[in-house]
């Protein structure tokens, strides 16, 4: 997946743990881990909105676009 979620960096900057964030946002730790490790296929706007609210940041601070050859081939196949 070419989109990377930079949750680790934001949690470090805000000095917040993953457990604390999931309690504030209302998402399970398992789901937040899926997001953090890049296994998620999609993110709801409501989730993105909650994350930006609690981390006091913009969506662009959380999402990074890093295309690779494998991603281009995968997306072409879809």
């Amino acid at each position: 997946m070419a989109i990377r979620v930079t949750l680790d960096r934001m949690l470090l900057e805000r000095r917040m743990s993953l457990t604390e964030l999931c309690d504030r946002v209302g998402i399970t730790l398992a789901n937040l881990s899926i997001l953090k490790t890049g296994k998620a296929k999609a993110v709801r706007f409501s989730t993105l909105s909650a994350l930006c609210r609690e981390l006091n940041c913009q969506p662009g601070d959380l999402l990074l676009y890093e295309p690779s050859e494998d991603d281009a081939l995968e997306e072409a196949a879809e």
Partner: protein
Amino acid sequence: MKALGRGSIASIVKVGLEVVWVVLWIAAAGLGVAAVVYAGVLAAIATGALPESILHIGEATTQIGPIRIVTDAGDRLVWPVVATGLLAGSVAVGGALAIVWRLRRMFASFASGEPFSAENAQHLRVIWMVMLAMEVSRYLIMGGVLLLVTLFGERHGVDLTVRAPVNLTTWGAILILIVLAEVFREGARLREEEKLTI
């Protein structure tokens, strides 16, 4: 009453399928015993321990699928008739066991509330393939019966009546299952995507 999940219609059907599963295994065991007993009788006749007249029951009509065989010479239990009957029975019971086993797995997942999985798409695919194989086997067995009657019929005075063999209900069900298997595959894909949507 809800259709999926615990205490649903799917749960009731699941119990029914367990009963059918046991009945089919009893039928399969019965076929096995019948085959062994008949083989033993033939061996006994071959060695002279039993008279050949034991196979002569009298004038009778035997139905194998759409084929009705009238044996006016009284050889109802000759090996072509019994072997064909056992083969047709084995295919029917074997196919039914394969289908019911897959249905049991599917309804277990329906009863747990998770219908759309890749496994269920695979189960449906296997079910239509088994039904297709059973239908083709039926035609092959009918062809075999016609051949045996042609070879042995005149000597034993066998008269043959054959009705049209094409079962539109079965073929319609096979086509519907092909489509349903793809529907479930797509449903499983969407469910997987939804699970990974945060």
